[in-house]
């Protein structure tokens, strides 16, 4: 990380590329991530958007972008990105555009698509070595339609389709590991409330070629049930409690870019959101809370053990 232009917070961009006036909710953690990513990638970026909340970014005749935006069905954004990349490559080969005019192709997708119906097309794009950046804003549910359960919804959360009495019985899919097993060029997790970590990772991804996969946790005031003003604080708590590990994978090597010390109890994060309120009211659900804490503890213990064994202790 010695060659980064983002050494400290003051190096973050103070003027922003994404236009204001979008229809995203006040306090949207997904929009925050998209805005920060765009600031680092720069103007020469074309977005290919799978249907989701960010559908509302660019609704005719309004666009917050400085360049083009292509809208696709939920499952087919990587196919759209392939078409755009191919068109650029053909025009480059024919000399119709110069290398300076080339564009970075970026897929923008929610977790409903990324973790579910879009996963097959994404896996195929990684297989083909498609030169693109894939950005998933993960608000852990189908937020645009009222927060129904997705494959990214966490265990124990209340959603529109899993009421408090039962809550989400399944477990959040480990999309990071699925992607890494598929061996793309780069995989990373980010969150808008850690702008420096995000900027460095996007800067790294920008300099590479091939499939570069990013998941941004997207705190969602509307879907998760918290005041918009708490959006950044909740993102930070997700990192401090260890439930959202910030990490990157490259050339077979996994690196955690923020290891929380000390790691806060996961309920510090859970109790900030109404989707978890039934774990605390009318009485604490000790069994569920312990289970969620144990899953976080297990994750970090495995990371520690893997580190020790690779050191040969």
């Amino acid at each position, binding site marked *: 990380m010695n060659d980064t232009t983002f050494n400290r917070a003051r190096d*973050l961009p103070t*003027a922003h590329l994404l236009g204001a006036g979008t229809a995203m909710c*006040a306090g949207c953690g997904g929009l925050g991530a998209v805005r920060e990513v765009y600031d680092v990638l720069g103007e020469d970026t074309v977005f290919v958007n799978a249907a989701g909340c960010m*559908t509302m970014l660019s609704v005719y*005749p309004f666009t917050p*972008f400085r360049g083009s935006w292509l809208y696709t069905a939920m499952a087919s954004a990587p196919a759209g990105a392939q078409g755009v990349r191919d068109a650029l490559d053909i025009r480059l080969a024919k000399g119709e555009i110069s290398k300076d005019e080339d564009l970075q192709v970026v897929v923008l997708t929610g977790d409903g698509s990324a973790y579910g119906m879009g996963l097959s097309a994404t896996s195929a794009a990684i297989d083909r070595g498609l030169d693109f950046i894939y950005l998933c804003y993960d608000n852990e549910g189908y937020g645009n339609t009222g927060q129904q359960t997705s494959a990214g919804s966490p265990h124990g959360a209340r959603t529109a389709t899993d*009421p*408090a*009495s039962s809550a989400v019985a399944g477990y959040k899919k480990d999309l990071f590991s699925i992607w890494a097993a598929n061996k793309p060029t780069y995989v990373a997790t980010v969150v808008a409330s850690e*702008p420096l970590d995000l900027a460095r990772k996007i800067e790294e991804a920008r300099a590479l070629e091939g499939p570069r996969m990013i998941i941004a946790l997207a705190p969602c005031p509307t879907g998760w049930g918290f005041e918009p003003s708490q959006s950044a604080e909740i993102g930070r708590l997700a990192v401090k409690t260890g439930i959202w590990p910030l990490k990157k994978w490259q050339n077979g090597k996994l690196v955690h870019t923020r290891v929380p010390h000390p790691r806060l109890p996961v309920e510090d994060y859970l109790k900030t959101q109404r989707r978890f309120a039934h774990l605390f009211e009318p009485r604490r659900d000790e069994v569920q809370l312990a289970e969620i804490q144990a899953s976080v503890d297990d994750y970090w213990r495995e990371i520690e053990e893997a580190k020790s064994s690779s050191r040969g202790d």
Partner: protein
Amino acid sequence: MYRIRFHGRGGQGMKTASRILGTALFRGGFQVQDAPRYGAERRGAPMFAFVRAAREPILERGIITNPDLVLVADDSLVGIPAAGVMAGLRTDTVLAIASDTDADTWRHRLHINNPVVILPGIDTDDDDTHIPDTSAQCAGAAAALIGKVSRVVLTEAVTEETSGFGALALEANLETALAAFDAIGLQTGSVVEGAAYDVASSVRPDWVDLSAEASAVAAPNIYAALTSVQVRTGLWRTLRPLLERDKCKRCHWVCGSYCPDGVIAVDDAGYPEIDYEHCKGCMICVAQCPAHALVAVAEEEYRTAKGDGA
């Protein structure tokens, strides 16, 4: 047929209010439609929900343009034409507003003689960035104003519609709904049931006519960049972040980096410049500023103070 419209902002619970009232009327023997009207989920943006209830099958569809009862959860919406609070009011339509302002003042402001009912504003003492959920209050008040639903049936409807939010939320909703129901007192049953829709006498609704926009808006250049700035999302705001300049440490990055909408830039001197045309009022900057140099002020208070020359 009763036609009821609930106006609020995304997050204030108007969709839930319409569901509670719809379920209560259904349990009370009515045939019912209830539906929210908004685009994609957007917290803080004006939206409305409506309920139709009749003893006979309901053949009407679409939004209600001739309401018997209009409830407003957020009185700042009354002055926003796009929110359509006053659309289609008859002279006997009951207007119920959650407000600190009294009924006579509202009648005077709006130049109407309609019955106006004031619902007490919900206290948000400990957290000034909180958008209160007024679903139970508005549903309870509406049920009483219509006067066709008992306390028992209202209790069943609140339970059916809000028990999924957890036991404590249900308990609070029941208490709020019943208190709002009882508070209507002498005005119980004051809503006048509207006549059935008559095709022969129907007139074309005025919302079909589009007013002429400036050509840059009506026929925009779709190849242009950053056209979204023409959408003034500053209208969503109920709270305004204000900079107390002497407290600003000119850190250069915190408020601007955490603003999801990118409407805070930093000037050459290192002070934030907030674009109020587009700031949606999420108050993340207020929550994040380590020096507490940004404070949240209610828009209404700010405008009033400005109007007084303060």
